[in-house]
């Protein structure tokens, strides 16, 4: 299950698992966003290749409009996936906000 919503500082909070079953709903939500978008991943406990595809598509669309996708508070396992797959070369992955 995945829940997406706006946090108090305007970041998008991802709560749950971004897998193939949730990819469509996540894509629809993210398609409505523009500019520089920050994803708070502190409560994202799983992401599959389908979820990564959603992030890539969204990032590409935002870049075309001079925006970007920024990921914050990514847990160590997800950070490993981003690092070893090379996605860290595309996404800005920031440390968790205090």
């Amino acid at each position, binding site marked *: 299950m995945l829940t997406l919503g706006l946090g108090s500082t305007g970041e998008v909070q991802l709560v749950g698992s971004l897998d193939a079953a949730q990819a469509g709903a996540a894509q629809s939500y993210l398609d409505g966003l523009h500019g520089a978008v920050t994803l708070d991943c502190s409560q994202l406990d799983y992401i599959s*290749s389908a979820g*990564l595809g959603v992030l*890539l*598509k969204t990032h*590409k669309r935002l870049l075309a409009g001079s925006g970007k996708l920024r990921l914050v508070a990514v847990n160590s*396992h997800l950070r490993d996936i981003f690092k*070893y*797959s*090379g996605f860290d070369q*595309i996404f800005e992955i920031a440390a968790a906000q205090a």
Partner: protein
Amino acid sequence: MLSPLIPPIGLLPVLLFLLALVYFDSYKLTKLSSVVGALVAGGMVAGISFFANGALMKLLHLDLHRDAYWVAPVVEESLKAAVMVFLFRSHRIGFLVDGAIMGFAVGAGFAVVENFYYLLNTPGANMAVWVVRGFGTAFMHGAVTATFAVLLLVISETREGQSPLAFLPGLLVAVGIHALFNHFFVSPIVTTAVTLLVLPIMLYEVFIRSEKRLGRWLGTGFDADAEMLGLLNSGGLSNSPLGQYLHTLQGRFKGPIVADILCYVRLHTELALRAKGLLLMRENGFEVAVDDATRAKFLELQYLAKSIGATGLMAIQPVLHTSRKDLWQLYMLDEQL
């Protein structure tokens, strides 16, 4: 006198079609330098075929027509197939799309050299002949080698694919189409038109099926690699089935070798994840360079493979993904360095 239109008609269409194939491959499975290499290999095969056909004509006392009908298709398709079997066995082709592109490139290289030879030696041939050679014969050469490659890859995924003779059905089909084309049962122009009509449909189907298969493999493989990485990093490896399996190896291998086996599993998983990440990014239009750290991992993987030895590598096959596609992805990644 040779019309200035004839050399481009004889040589360019097949090369432009090949470029279009490379462009439409959304995962960019083939590097342009590899495609150029395949073109050159095809050209060399054309040279070898020229002498082999000549020798066989003398040996079998055949005239040019009989040679074209039967001997040339067998000689030429066997030699082009040999190039494709080499690419297949060395994991340089993994999916139907790159197989079709590299096959078409070998055939195109063959056709370009053959047509260049005819340009030099039959300057009196009229425009219709060159339309047939440039759009018909050249495309046929590309298409039959692409067909051979596709059938080789399809058969390799079946139980019969393990046989050393798995290439034979593809070769028979390639020789059959080539011989049929050379017979010109209908007029050469009609044969050319049919080739131009059928070829794009066939390749479109290959591209669609291949991209679906690749997408499925990429999705499940990426998730499996990520899960394996999570397990390796979790600190709970020894309680997992993988950890228990590695534990059983302690009785068969010395301690340092078991440590190298664990390192090998980890590096192999990291590199597999990197390769699939690269393909996922390409699918979405991102092209990123492969870094020095990945280069260092490849060197380390080679060292570990030597240290573990063939027996050790066989012992870890049950826990690693070592299908042909999995080995191909590492070759593909290595090629980017």
